[in-house]
C-alpha cells in the first residue's frame, strides 16, 4: 500500500477523513509522524459550553400550563443547540482524534437525559477523558447526574437497592455478559447505594443512604465501596478484552480478530487502562493497514455527515437541518436507542436509509430540497401531543454551501477525475464508476458523483 493511502486510512479511522488541502503535508509523513500530529492536535481538551443553565425544571413542576409549554420549548431548543454544537465541533475542529473517541465513548456509555446541561456535562466527561485513563472515565461517568438519573441510581438506597446501574456497569461498560453472577449484581448495587446528585447537578455521596455492610463481589469480601467495585472490575483482564473488542470494531474491522484483540488487551491492561498507548498500538500495528481492514467499515450517519462537512467545508445557514438528517439516517446524537448504544455496522443500512445516504450528500452540496421527515423520537411525543403538531411536513431547502473555490484550489493541478475519486473514497474506484466519471462534465460533477456512491458509505 502506498504511503498516501496509509495516511488516508489512518485519518479515516482516527478522524473523519483527510481533506484535499492536507494531501501535500500528509504525503511527506510516515505513519509515526502522522500519528504524532494527530495526538498533538488533540492534546488540549476544550469543553462544549453551549448550555449555560437548566431549563427551569423545578419551576415547571410548580407552574401552570403556559409555563409547562414554555419549559418544553426551551428544553427542545437546548437539546437542539447541544446537538448542533457537537456537530459543528466535529465538523470544524483540528482535534479530530479526541472528537472521534468522544463519539466512541458517547456510544459506549450510552445515556439519555432530557436535561441538556446534564447531557453536555456527560459529553464533556467523555471528551476530557477520551484519550486519558479508562478508570477515571468510568468513575466520572458513574458520578455524572445524567448517568445516575438514567440508570436509576438516584433511587438506589440502603435496604432498597436499585440494580440498574450496577448491572449495566458490568454488562455494557466494563466486563461484559457472562463474567459475573446475579449475586455479583446484587452485591455491587449495594456498594453504589447513596451515589446520587444534588439540585445543582453535582455528584453527592449521600452517606445516610449508603449500605456499609459487608459485600462479596467477584470473590472479594469487605465493606466495598463503588470505587472498590470499579477497581475490582478493572482488575479483571476481561475488562481490557471487552473494551478492546469494542474499540477494534470501531477502528479496525466489524469482524473481531481474537489475536489482534488479545494483543490490544495486553497493551491496555499493562498500561493501567491508559487509552493513548492502546490507540498508538492499534494505529501502528501492521495489521491495521492490511488490505482487508481498509475501506470496509460502514460509516455511522454522524461520521458520514461530519466527513462531508469537513471535506467540502460545508456551511449551514440552518444547522438544525443536520438534526433532520440524523433522524432519517437513524442516529440522533444524545438519543441512543437504549443503554447498549447504536448497534452499528450493517444495522445502519436498510433500503430507505441507504437511498437517503446516497442522496443526502448531493442535496447538501447542491443546496437542494429535502422532502422527507424521519420519525419522531418517542421522547418527543409529549411535545407533539401538546403542540397539535402532527408532523405535517413541508419541503425544506437545505440552505448550505460548500466552499467550492477553496476545495477546487486545494486539488493539485492536473489531478485526474479518477484520482480525485480515489482520494475521496476508501475502497478502490470500480470500472463502472471510472466510466461514469469519464462522462462527468467537470471536477465538481465528478466529486458529487463520488460522494453519491455505495463506496462513500465506507471508511
Amino acid at each position, binding site marked *: 500500500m502506498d504511503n498516501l493511502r496509509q495516511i488516508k486510512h489512518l485519518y479515516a479511522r482516527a478522524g473523519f477523513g483527510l481533506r484535499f488541502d492536507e494531501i501535500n503535508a500528509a504525503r511527506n509523513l510516515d505513519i509515526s509522524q502522522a500519528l504524532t500530529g494527530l495526538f498533538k492536535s488533540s492534546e488540549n481538551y476544550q469543553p462544549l459550553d453551549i448550555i449555560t443553565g437548566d431549563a427551569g425544571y423545578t419551576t415547571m413542576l410548580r407552574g401552570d400550563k403556559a409555563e409547562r409549554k414554555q419549559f418544553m420549548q426551551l428544553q427542545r431548543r437546548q437539546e437542539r443547540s447541544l446537538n448542533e454544537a457537537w456537530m459543528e465541533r466535529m465538523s470544524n475542529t483540528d482535534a479530530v482524534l479526541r472528537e472521534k473517541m468522544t463519539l466512541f465513548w458517547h456510544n459506549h456509555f450510552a445515556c439519555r437525559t432530557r436535561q441538556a446541561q446534564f447531557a453536555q456535562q456527560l459529553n464533556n466527561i467523555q471528551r476530557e477523558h477520551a484519550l486519558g485513563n479508562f478508570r477515571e472515565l468510568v468513575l466520572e461517568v458513574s458520578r455524572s447526574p445524567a448517568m445516575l438519573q438514567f440508570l436509576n441510581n438516584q433511587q438506589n438506597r440502603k435496604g432498597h437497592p436499585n440494580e440498574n446501574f450496577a448491572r449495566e456497569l458490568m454488562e455494557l461498560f466494563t466486563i461484559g455478559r457472562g463474567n459475573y453472577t446475579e449475586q455479583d449484581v446484587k452485591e455491587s448495587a449495594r456498594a453504589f447505594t447513596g451515589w446520587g446528585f444534588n439540585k445543582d447537578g453535582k455528584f453527592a455521596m449521600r452517606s445516610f443512604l449508603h449500605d456499609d455492610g459487608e459485600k462479596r463481589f467477584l470473590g472479594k469480601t469487605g465493606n466495598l465501596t463503588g470505587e472498590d467495585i470499579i477497581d475490582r472490575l478493572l482488575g479483571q483482564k476481561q475488562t481490557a478484552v471487552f473494551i478492546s473488542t469494542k474499540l477494534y470494531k470501531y477502528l479496525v474491522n466489524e469482524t473481531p480478530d481474537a489475536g489482534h484483540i488479545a494483543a490490544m488487551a495486553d497493551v491496555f491492561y499493562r498500561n493501567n487502562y491508559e487509552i493513548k498507548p492502546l490507540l498508538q498500538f492499534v494505529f501502528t500495528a501492521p495489521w491495521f493497514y492490511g488490505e482487508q481492514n481498509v475501506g470496509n467499515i460502514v460509516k455511522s450517519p454522524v461520521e458520514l455527515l461530519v466527513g462531508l462537512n469537513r471535506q467540502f467545508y460545508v456551511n449551514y445557514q440552518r444547522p438544525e437541518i443536520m438534526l433532520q438528517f440524523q433522524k432519517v439516517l437513524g442516529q440522533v446524537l444524545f438519543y441512543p436507542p437504549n443503554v447498549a448504544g447504536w448497534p452499528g455496522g450493517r444495522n445502519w443500512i436498510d433500503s430507505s436509509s441507504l437511498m437517503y445516504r446516497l442522496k443526502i450528500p448531493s442535496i447538501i452540496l447542491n443546496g437542494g430540497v429535502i422532502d422527507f421527515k424521519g420519525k419522531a423520537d418517542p421522547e418527543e411525543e409529549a411535545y407533539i401531543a401538546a403542540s397539535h403538531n402532527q408532523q405535517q411536513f413541508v419541503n425544506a431547502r437545505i440552505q448550505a454551501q460548500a466552499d467550492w473555490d477553496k476545495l477546487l484550489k486545494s486539488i493539485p493541478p492536473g489531478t485526474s477525475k479518477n484520482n480525485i475519486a480515489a482520494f475521496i473514497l476508501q475502497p478502490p474506484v470500480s470500472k463502472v464508476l471510472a466510466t*461514469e466519471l469519464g462522462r462527468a462534465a467537470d471536477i465538481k460533477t465528478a466529486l458529487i458523483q463520488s460522494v453519491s456512491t455505495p463506496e462513500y458509505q465506507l471508511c
Partner: protein
Amino acid sequence: MMIPAFLKPFEAMASAELGGHKNLVIIQLSGGNDGLNTIVPYGNDIYYQKRTTIAVGKNDVVKLDDMQGLNPNLSALKEIYDQGWMGIINSVGYPNPDRSHFRSMDIWQTASESNQFLTTGWIGRYLDSNCAVCKNPYTAIEVDDTLSLAMKGAKMKGIAVEDPDKLFQTTREPFFKELVHNHNDANLNEDNLGYLYKTMAETYSSAEYIQQTSKTYTVKGDYPATPFANQLKTVSKFINSGLETHVYYVSLSGFDTHVAQQPQQGRQLKIYGDAVAAFIKDLKQTGKLDDTLVMTFSEFGRRVEQNASNGTDHGTANNILLFGGKLKKAGIYNDAPDLVQLDNGDLKYTVDFRDVYATLLDKWLDVSNSVVLGKEFGRMKFI
C-alpha cells in the same frame, strides 16, 4: 450485460401464486395511549373515583358490554364491532415494565425481555426465519419514510414506502441506475461493499415492483382526509393490487398526554377510529377482510389515577385492538382491567404481549414463534 436474478421480480412473480394470502397490518400508537380512556371501564366505580376530571362520562361511552365501552371519538368503530370484526385484549404487558417511552417501545418492537437489548425487531426476525415467502424486502412494508427497528432483521429487512411513485423516482436517477445495472462483481462479494450494492439492487427492483403492481389498482373506499387515513389507504392499495407483501406497519403519534388529556387524546382517537373504520369497510367491500388482520398497540398504558394537570402519567399494561374478518373470538377477549389489585398504582398485566405476537406468528404468518421470539410463547384463541 447479465442482470442478477433479484432484479427480475416480475419474472419470478409470474410463477408465484397470485391468489389471496394473509396480511398482517400493525398499527403503532406512539407516546403511550391511555387505554383506560380508549376502552372505558364505565361499569367500574373506581375508574370514576380515580379520574375525577378526565373520565369519560357514562352517558358518553359507546357501550360494548355492561363493563366496557368505546371512547365516543371511536364511535365509527361501533359498527365494525357489531359486525364481529373487532377484538379487544385487555391488560397486555410484560414483566418488570419500563415506563420510559423509548425503552418500552424498544421492548415492544424487539420483543425482548425488559433487561435484554436486542438489535433486531420481531418482524425483522420473521423475515430472517427463512419462511417460504420471506425472500424480498417487500415481504414487510412500513408505510413511512423511514424503517422502524421492528422491521429490521439480522439478514433481512423490510422496506419503507411512503409513496410508491416517489420511491420509484428516487431509485431511477440516471447515476444510480448506471451503478446498479453495471455493477456485477461487487454484488457477488460478502463484504460490506457487496452488501451495500445488494441492498441498492434490491431496493431498485422492489421500488419498481411495488410501483408497477400498486398502480394497477385504484382505491374505491372513502377515507378521511388525514395523513394517517392516507397511510391506511396506501395499505389498501397495496393489498388490493395483489402485492406479495405479508406485513404492513403504520404509526400514529401524539398520545403522550400528561396535560389536558381529553381534547388531545380525543383528537388522536378520532383520527385513528375514523381511518380504521374506513379501512375495514373498504377491505370488506373488496373481499380482502378475511385475509387481513389488524393489530394496534402502544408502548404502555397510563397510570390508573389521573395527575394534577388533567392528564395521565406513564403506566404499564394496556389493551391491544384487533380487527379482521376471521376473528375466532371477536369482541372483548378477556376480563376488563382490575382496578383494585394494582402494582404501585399501575395495572398488572395478565397477557404477555409476546403471547399475542406468538399467536400471530404461528397462526397467521405460519412460522414457529420460538424461532422468532427466542423461546416458546403461548398461543391464544383470537384467531
